């Protein structure tokens, strides 16, 4: 379709937006996840409803004025409803939320995420900001999407700390721990799309982005991925998608690549 230049953050944002189906309900976090949601609304999913952890159902965000937090008044603009934080998170427990959109400092082979500590939690090298609603979303939403920059230090065999449960130790360990629903549905990176093998719940390559070789992925992954014989290539971002994206984030505050 096009060979228009795009950066890796834009690529991840577009691929994430495509994972969101029309007519569904998504919990959107600040930054890139939010842009993906709005992009989806403006392309293939006009009836997608965005929820914000701050207590907002179905807002209208002004292009170019993306708020740096989902807990403030600009997120509430022209919403359908404002409700307490506890109650908006509880909507997930009742089963109303299809997608949760997460990131993290680290992800492991079973899709567990860490946003609390780098190093030993008792004596951490870095104390990170923490879970926010991520643990709740990953425990309760029907399908979890994880968007991350693909780097070896982020894709680790075992996270230093499970802030946010994926499939825990693999197999049926998630269900055994009490989580009867949900789990990570897709991991979206600047190299490709990843899902989880049905039985083992190990991360599996689902597709590679144009120009990416499987060796590139292996090189940047700290654990052994499940690699099927047949690997499709994703369709690159279209001019329309990129145009809308840049209208939403003209200064590229949220769509500038953070890694190498």
């Amino acid at each position, binding site marked *: 379709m096009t060979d228009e230049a795009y950066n890796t953050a834009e690529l991840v944002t577009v691929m994430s937006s495509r994972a969101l189906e029309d007519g569904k309900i998504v919990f959107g976090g600040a930054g890139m996840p939010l842009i993906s949601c709005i992009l989806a609304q403006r392309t293939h999913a006009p009836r997608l409803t965005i929820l914000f952890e701050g207590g907002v159902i179905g807002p209208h965000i002004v292009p170019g004025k993306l708020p740096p937090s989902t807990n*403030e*008044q600009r997120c509430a603009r*022209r919403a359908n409803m*404002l409700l307490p*934080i506890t109650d908006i998170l509880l909507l997930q427990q009742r089963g109303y939320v299809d997608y949760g959109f997460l990131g993290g400092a680290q992800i492991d082979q079973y899709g567990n995420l860490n946003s609390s500590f780098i190093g030993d939690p008792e004596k951490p090298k870095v104390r990170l*900001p923490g879970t926010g609603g991520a*643990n*709740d979303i990953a*425990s309760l939403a029907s399908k979890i999407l994880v968007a991350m920059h693909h780097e070896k230090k982020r894709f680790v065999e075992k996270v230093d700390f499970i802030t946010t449960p994926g499939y825990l130790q693999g197999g049926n*360990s998630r269900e055994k721990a009490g989580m009867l629903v949900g789990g990570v549905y897709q991991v979206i990176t600047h190299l490709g799309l990843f899902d989880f093998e049905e039985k083992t719940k190990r991360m599996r390559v689902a597709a590679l982005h144009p120009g990416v070789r499987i060796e590139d992925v292996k090189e940047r992954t700290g654990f052994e991925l499940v690699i099927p014989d047949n690997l499709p290539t994703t369709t690159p971002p279209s001019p329309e998608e990129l145009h809308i994206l840049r209208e939403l984030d003209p200064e590229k505050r949220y769509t500038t690549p953070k890694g190498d």
Partner: protein
Amino acid sequence: MVRPYKDLREFIDRKDRGLREKVMSLEEAVGIIKDGDHVVSGGCHYSMTPMAAVWEIIRQKKKDLIYSRSITSTDGDLLLVSGATKHVITSWFSPGVTWGVSRVMRYFMQQGLATYEEWSHMSLGLRYRAGSMGIPFIPARVMMGSDLFLRAPDIKEIVCPYTGEKLALIPALNPDVAIIHTQRCDPYGNVQKAGLPFMDQDIAMAADRVIITTEKIVSNDQVRRMPDRTSIPFFCVDAVVEVPYGCFPHECYGEYEPLFSHIDDYVKVMMGQGPEGVKEYLHKYVYGPNTWNDYLELLGSKNIVQATVLGRAVYND
């Protein structure tokens, strides 16, 4: 720790719940807080932060407070550096996503100088809600299987007696004092807050004592014209303080947006120099001014007017 039921009831029993005026100065109101108290803040992140009360807590040199809040922003930095608290209970702690990880929070937690007790956002909300309901816990389907569960004090797991399913028991949290900011409140303490409700109603009901700071005090007649707008009833409230711009540099829904330029400057100092930089900030903006209005003057009238115009835009759409 989950407090015994009789202890919770006793406190409310002793409270004067009559319809009476509670308007007082910021100094008097914050004087209610004792060293060692658990203080919970209303709002979330950089929205509806009761900053004037936080500011006064620091000026009164309170010590050994437990500070809790749904999401903690620059308020947490200031309370740590001033020595008011060494124990923060929250779900996320940093100024905001675009400003990076708080160097102050990192310094205190990585050096073991303070505790960051981390709960998921919903479980923290359920802790206040259980507290507000006068029950010791709420069962929920979060925190399970995670390392957060292993580190959180007091959380337990049960097998549901009805379904046989595993559940986490989220323990009640009943703070000593809640500090909450609102757009309007009457002299008796009927709070009519607009915009995002956050966890304010639950924390008011959960806490033993409640301090309300408000953009303006309205008459009880005004409240009675729109009783459906009241979210916290007067008998929960112990103090009402009129503090215009009481959230600055954070936002107050429909009244003013955050002073982003001020927060940018703060973050530069905080991230550049860590706790030492924040000490200087405290001297300039907290200990220096004689009154809250003197503090506002330091923020600059042009900036305040601009933030006000942007804040009011919510109602002009």
